[in-house]
Structures are given as C-alpha cells and as structure tokens.
C-alpha cells in the first residue's frame, strides 16, 4: 500500500472511531436545521424559500466545526512532524488528509441533506439538485478550510480563530452554491452557470488549498 493511500485509510479510520467525529458533523447539521424553524417561524412558504440557504449554511458550519480536529490531534501526538519531515510531499499529504476529512465529514452531510430538505419543505423534485450542489461545493469548503486549519494549528489557537479566517474565503462558494440550489427550485433557470462556477471553485481550491496549507504548516511550525 503506498504511503498516501495508507494515510487516507488511517485518517478515515481515526475519523469514524469513537472520539472521531464523522457522524458528529451530520448530527450538528440536523440540529442546526431543526433550530431554524424555531427561529423564523413554521411558515412553510418562507421555509421553502430559504430552505436551500439554510441547508448550505448548516453544511458550511458543520464542516467548519470539524476542521479543528484536522491537524490538532496529529500535532499533539507528533504525527504532523512525521508528515512534515517524511518523503511524501507535504502538499500531497495535506491534500489526502483533506480528502479523508471530506469523505468522513462532508459526505454524510450530503446524504442527509435531502431528509433535512423535507423538514424545510424544499420541493421534492429539486431535492436531488440541492444535494448535488452540496456534493460539488463541500470539497471547496473543505479545501479552503484546510488553509485556516493549518494556520490555526501553527499558532495553537483553535476555535473561533479558525472560523474568522475561513468564513470570508468561503463566501464565493456559499454565493454560488445557494444560487445554483435556488435556480434548481425555480425550474432550472440558471442552474448550469452557477453550478459550473461552483465546480470551478472546488477544483481551484483542490489545487490551491493544499499548497497554501502546506506553506502555512512549514512556515508556522518551523
């Protein structure tokens, strides 16, 4: 088994074990989506209108909260030092960790999004498209969040600092994700353009995120 695939398997195993947090993100997503009707009122029309936005915000916050753990546990037990001094390029190692994070934290969000959409009265026909926008957009959230995670582990400050750093950078993803999801509900008006840009953002962050995160780790932890 090559080094990168071993790293991927290891990260996924750690994430799904007790104390990991793979399903914790999905649980948080569920709770946030449940709280919104308490806040805005149970008017089904209103919920249908803001449903995609709530799903996107919930997914954003859920993936953000799990990013803390991405590097923190490795930093504490020394595996981050091993990764940084190993033969595998740090950019690739970091990208593989992000992929493992996406598979274990964000995929469950995409899977339960249609169920939560039911609670928010999102149109059934559009539910699949909304989940598709989440599937295409959550990689961008993960890889942009990777930069914030690397920056905050270098400074050993977790929590809200990570959110403050990452959220402004994820605003374009949120804008186009919700635009695509809304377009799917209004009978596919401009779903194509918004969705394509969303995919472009994911692909771009797939490349740039690991580079910036590796630079942050190298310079911050030297």
């Amino acid at each position, binding site marked *: 088994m090559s080094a990168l695939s071993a790293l991927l398997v290891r990260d996924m195993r750690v994430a799904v074990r007790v104390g990991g947090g793979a399903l914790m993100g999905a649980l948080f997503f569920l709770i946030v989506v449940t709280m919104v009707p308490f806040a805005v009122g149970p008017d089904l029309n209103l919920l249908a209108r803001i449903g995609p936005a709530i799903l996107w915000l919930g997914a954003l916050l859920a993936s953000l909260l799990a990013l803390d753990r991405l590097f923190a546990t490795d930093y504490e037990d020394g595996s981050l030092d091993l990764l940084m001094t190993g033969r595998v390029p740090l950019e690739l190692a970091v990208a593989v960790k992000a992929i493992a994070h996406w598979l274990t934290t964000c995929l469950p969000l995409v899977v339960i999004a249609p169920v939560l959409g039911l609670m928010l009265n999102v149109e059934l026909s559009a539910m699949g498209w909304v989940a598709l926008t989440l599937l295409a957009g959550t990689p961008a959230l993960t890889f942009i969040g990777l930069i914030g995670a690397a920056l905050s582990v*270098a400074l050993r400050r977790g929590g809200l600092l990570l959110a403050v750093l990452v959220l402004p950078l994820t605003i374009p993803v949120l804008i186009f994700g919700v635009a695509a999801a809304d377009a799917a509900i209004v009978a596919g008006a401009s779903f194509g353009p918004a969705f394509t840009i969303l995919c472009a953002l994911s692909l771009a962050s797939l490349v740039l995120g690991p580079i910036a995160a590796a630079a942050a780790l190298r310079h911050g932890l030297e």
Partner: protein
Amino acid sequence: MAVIDIANPTRFLALVNRLLPWLTAATLLLFAVGLSQAMHAPDDYQQGATVKIMFLHVPAAWLGMFGWGLMSIAALGTLVWRHPLADVAGKAAAPIGAAFTFICLITGSLWGRPTWGTYWVWDARLTSVLVLFLLYLGVLALYWTAEDPGRGARAAAVLSLVGAVNLPIIKFSVEWWNTLHQGSSIFRMGGPTIDPSILRPLIVMAVAFTLLFVTLHLAAMRNEILRRRVRAMRLMQAQALAEAT
C-alpha cells in the same frame, strides 16, 4: 549607504527618525491644499454637495486595497526572500489598511443613503469590500493571538497572499456584475470621465492620504521594532532572574 542597509533594523530606525518629520510636514501641507481645493470644487449637478464625500470615500477605498497589496508584497518578502523587516512591514500595514477600508465602508454607506436611498445593498462591489474588511480582521486576529511574533507573522503572511485574490475581484466587480455601485470612472480604458474640476481635488486628496498612509506605516514599523526589542529585553531579564535564583 546602499538600499540593502535598510534591512538592518537599527539603520532603518535611524532613517525613519530622519524622514518622519518631513513626511509629516508634507502630509499636512497636501491635506491643506487638498481640503481647500475640495471646498472650492463645484457641486455635482445631480447630487449637490454630497458629491464631496467622494474626496474621502475614494482615497480610503484605494488605500484599503493598497494596504492589502502592501501586505502581500511584505508576505512575499517574509516567506520567499526572508527580508528581516518584511514581517514588520506587514504587521504595521494591517491596522492602517483595515481602518481605511472601514472608513470607505462607512462613508460609502452615508453617501448611499441620500443618493441611492439605502445605507447598504448586497451588490458585488460592496460585498467584496466587506469581505476585504473581514479578511483584514482575520489577519489582525492572527497577529494578536500569536504568542511568538515571528510565527504569527509568517501565518499572517500566508493569509495575506491567499486573500490577495480578493483585490482584482474588488476592482473588476463593477464590470463583471450588475452593481448599484457605479462603474469605474477613473482607471478605465478611455481615460477618466470625471470633470477635471472635481478630478483634480480628488487626486490631491488621494496623494495626501497616501502620504498619510506612508507616514503612519513608517511610524508603526518603528513602534513594532521597538516593541520587539522591549519584549526581547523582558525575556532576557526574566531568564537572568530565573538563573540567579
């Protein structure tokens, strides 16, 4: 004295101490000229006297973006060329740029109320400048929460480079999207479309504000170098105390 000598903090401090009085005087002089020109500038045919908010709003916007550009170049100096004073330059520029961006947002909002009828609108230009302000706050958070100034500076340098992607988005936002904010009227193909009687005070005020930025920036760099020296001396004192007992 070659340019490279400025990399030495002591020589840099000596240079700043010599330059700062002249820069301060030049800034005050240009502000005097600019403000008097601004007061005598004609009213806009549509907006009346409210157009004069532009003499504050536009330079603040330019300098907010200039601040982030300066931080990005300083970031390159920190990460790539390992210039000794690059991280000091970046850390000094962040609060000043953030302040100018904040002034831009506030004056723009106050200008929008009488002319557009609203204090705020989520169009591309306003949103991207707000994102710039949030990025500034993020960089400031990195500087303030780092225990080790050098490490915090390097992390902030990475964030400065990542956030630099926002600058062309701000510049071209009025062209790429339908915005309530007006399009480019100065830096555009075909030259400025503002009447010279208003453009001239604007340029003078912009130069005055730039000199203000440079003056404040050099003073802030001096303060940061002195602050680090104080910190180093405190650490040495604490270590001496610990060894004595």
